């Protein structure tokens, strides 16, 4: 148990160093590399006097280590101040936007990965048959087409022609948002499946030729039990790795999907922030996702030991 805490502490220290790196990167980009933000904010009314006053107000005239300290602090307190464009608290905007993004991405994530695991495990029995090959080639063809095309054709055909779904928009609330998220979810699931099927197929096929699988079959276990109990348990580590890698981007949503379907999620907030040069918002989203991905990595490492007792911390 003690070794566990020592390990956790070491991981946390490393995570801290990564967060320091990310915040430093963010600081260098937004406080040094980009052009003077006071010039952007004041636009054509910029006079040297007004610029100096604004830069004092924003705290840009302080020494660089003070400014960096503020950025680093925000990674732990999540106090990002308010947006330049809307003057609203950034954290509050993100809470609303992140929730909206999650209603689209979380169902897609769960359905997509469930489908991937189920289909790729089941298809191991049909290796080398025409169905197997068709599925692989189909996924390759589908993943070679841009996501924009799926969205455009989906909107034009299912929403405009057949009028099954609304074309775009969003309503908050559990049931009222359903019609708006079905089409985006279908597209996300489809693409997720096609991008990742090959990977899952490879790891599944590597596993089903192991000796323990043959033993399980020789015992006379049903194929479902062999696949979904024995093989699946042994595959938890690579599956967890890929799931955790994708997890932080869920909150952030799919930028292109949100933009096309006018879903007011975090992705759309970021696009607006980029076009308006709203630096605090972009800084905040970068830091939040980085912190989240670092935390996810630690959680993943702990989960490995739970699903596979052979892994020692």
């Amino acid at each position, binding site marked *: 148990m003690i070794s566990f805490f020592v390990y956790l502490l070491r991981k946390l220290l490393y995570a801290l160093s*990564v967060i320091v790196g990310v915040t430093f990167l963010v600081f260098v980009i937004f406080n040094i590399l980009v052009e003077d933000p006071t010039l952007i904010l004041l636009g054509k009314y910029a006079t040297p006097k007004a610029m100096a006053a604004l830069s004092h107000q924003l705290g840009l005239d302080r020494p660089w280590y003070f400014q960096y300290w503020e950025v680093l602090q925000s990674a732990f307190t999540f106090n990002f101040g308010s947006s330049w464009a809307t003057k609203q608290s950034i954290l509050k905007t993100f809470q609303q936007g992140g929730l909206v993004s999650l209603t689209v991405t979380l169902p897609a994530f769960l359905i997509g990965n469930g489908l991937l695991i189920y289909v790729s495990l089941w298809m191991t029995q049909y290796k080398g048959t025409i169905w197997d090959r068709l599925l692989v080639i189909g996924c*390759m063809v589908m993943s070679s087409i841009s996501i924009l095309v799926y969205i455009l054709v989906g909107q034009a055909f299912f929403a405009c022609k057949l009028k099954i779904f609304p074309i775009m928009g969003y309503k908050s609330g559990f049931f009222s948002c359903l019609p708006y998220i079905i089409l985006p979810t279908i597209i996300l699931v489809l693409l997720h499946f096609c991008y990742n099927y090959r990977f899952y197929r490879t790891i599944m096929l590597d596993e089903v030729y192991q000796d323990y699988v043959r033993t399980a079959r020789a015992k006379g276990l049903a194929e479902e039990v062999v696949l979904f109990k024995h093989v699946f348990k042994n595959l938890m580590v690579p599956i967890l790795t890929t799931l955790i890698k994708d997890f932080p981007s869920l909150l952030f949503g799919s930028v292109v999907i949100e933009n096309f379907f006018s879903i007011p999620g975090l992705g759309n907030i970021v696009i607006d922030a980029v076009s308006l040069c709203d630096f605090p918002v972009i800084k905040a989203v970068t830091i939040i996702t980085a912190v989240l991905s670092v935390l996810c990595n630690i959680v993943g490492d702990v989960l490995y030991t739970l699903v596979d007792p052979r892994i020692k911390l």
Partner: protein
Amino acid sequence: MYKRNLLHQFGCSAKALISKKLNLFCFITLLGYVLIAVGTKVGWLGADWNRAVGEAYQPPNGLHYFGTDVLGRSVVAKILHGTEVAISVGFVVALGAVLLGATFGIVAAYFGGIVDTCVVWLYTVVTAIPTIILLMVVALVFGKGMHTICIALVITEWTETCRLIRGEVIRHKSREYIQAASAIGASSARKIFVHLLPNILPLTIYQFSLVFQTAIKHEVVLSYLGIGVQNKPSWGIMINDAKTGLVRGIWWELFFATMAMFLLVFVFNILADTFRDLLDPKLKGR
């Protein structure tokens, strides 16, 4: 002693590589794309794409093979220019990202210790930021345009190459042939360039083809978001232009831009697959 053809590292010769019909088809398609890109760049093809050649929204016919767009411009010429953009972005990004990733990966794995820790830390920091945010942030710093896309994509894409090559070099470092080279007093440079490099070349080429197609896909999305190429047709911009016409049944601009991109990405997918099989014949058919 080192006169071996480099392709022997793949366990086959160049002849064997193109003897498979599918691979030959891929190489020829790729060559076609490159020729079109070069021809457009030099000005032989689609020189005045910005000029109206007929009525607006003409369906494909004998005069305008792929139809015309909203301003009556030829879709063929726009596709040619899109090809040029895609090939240049893909090539520059793949070359830059693979070179950067390979250099960092080899240096980190070969020297180990603090150098290794630093490189791993660096790519952990970069991968902690989601790709699309990093792309938009870099675009914000460097302004809009083609060079921005290239810089942004190199910054985001080198990490995966670095990770893979680092792992591969660590695997090779303890092998007997490197130990033998050390024993006869080979310098670090000789061990890296003469002994290690040929062995990780297949992986590098595999990564090159993967990054190439990822870059093309990202370029299309970034151009759609308005960060990409300016004042020039690109497949992403064409797909975006086709948005409004699609409901009225004007499918040709979307269709041909999609097909042009699809074929290129698909060819790279197949080639990456071929290299992967050569890399690890065990994986064949998996």
